[in-house]
């Protein structure tokens, strides 16, 4: 069964939401999910692009109020 952890990066100017996601995924098992909360609109474009390039799975990418919730599943 997959585990899901959430990173609240809504105040993360540095190192930034995507860097937080990459660092978190390194510590996870295959099948685990990481949810990133970001106020940076760029995250909703960059993270899906990167996810596809690396070969992970984009589970969801939705805007909630003034932030985005992006969930990525580790596939490799």
């Amino acid at each position, binding site marked *: 069964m997959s585990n899901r952890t959430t*990173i609240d990066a809504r*105040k993360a*100017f540095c*190192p*930034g939401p*995507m*860097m937080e996601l990459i660092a978190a995924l390194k510590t996870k098992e295959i099948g685990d999910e990481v949810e990133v909360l970001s106020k940076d609109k760029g995250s909703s474009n*960059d993270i899906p692009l*990167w996810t596809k*390039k690396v070969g992970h799975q984009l589970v969801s990418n939705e805007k909630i109020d003034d932030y985005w919730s992006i969930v990525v599943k580790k596939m490799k």
Partner: protein
Amino acid sequence: MKTRILIVGSGMGGTIVANGLARNLSHELRNGDASLTILGTTNTHLYQPGLLYVPFGRAREIELSRNERSILDRRVNFILDPAKLIDVEHNCVECESGKIHRYDYIIIATGSRLVPEMIPGLKEGAHHFYDLEGARKTREAIDNFEGGRVVININVPHKCPVAPLEITLMLDEHLSERGLRDKSEIIYTYPIGRLHGLEPVAHWALPEFDRRGIQYETFFNTKEVDPVGKTISSEEGDTLSYDLLITIPPHKGAAVVEASGLGPSGWIPTDPKTLLMKGSENVFVVGDTTDIPISKAGSTAHFEADTVIQNITHLVQEGRWARQYDGKVFCFIETGLSSGTYIWFNYETPPKPTPPTQMVHWAKLAYNRMYWLSAGGLL
């Protein structure tokens, strides 16, 4: 009743907290109403930002470290006995000697550590400058370099977020000074789709790289290094050959944090404003040890330490909180061997780099010496 304050870790954050509390609580310490103890893992206090200059022969090693006792207020009880287990349920810490220290307030400032072994071949194939031994070896490698391809490879998470740009720009000028730049390629790799995690810094760096002919590979998350074939490969499927590989290795928090079950990878879940460990009322976390998604930098530890000093002082003396941490971070950025800029930001204000000047470079060099006043709690 005596208030026992225990600090775990004698790096920058722990040392500043110790000296600040010693000054603010001098009355209580003198009367025996409070005690202040700091547990360290080494007698040597290293000014880590100074390591950046070592690979270029621009720092004397003797200037980078001092005896920890010599920079601590005499009212601080410094014990060289690394913590083995931090038991926040029972308000005590067991040290490697077996001695147990009890506390009313604890400040965990155990910092981060390099874990190049997380990437196959990285330790064997790459140089780094994030500790003194690594910086010395990088200096030797640069001294022996006679031209070819240098790959500067960035991994996450890591402390000192602007160091990757600094080492790259400084190397560019260093190779030019030695007449080797025309015979060399510099390729910078970064995990995300731009040159730096901070978007304004990435926008500033891009034309600077282009102007200097520094190449870059973005979306490069290191998978492995082949030290024999001298290649480095990414999770994204790219492979680069190199003659000299300089890396920023990935980091983890202190092993004692993981061993104590306080946070995965050694980072403690921390309230970003109170700096209390989440769910706790007497466990403060300072510096690299927090899981707050901001820079792991000396200035972060310094500004967090200021907040914790004020809050513990007020809690002890008046039973109330003083203030919250606003996420403030300040970083000098060396943009070569004789120019620099800086950024500052907090939770609400993004950074905005200004054009580099020689004056900021001099300010950075001056701060390198004034650091000891910061650590001593005077600046």
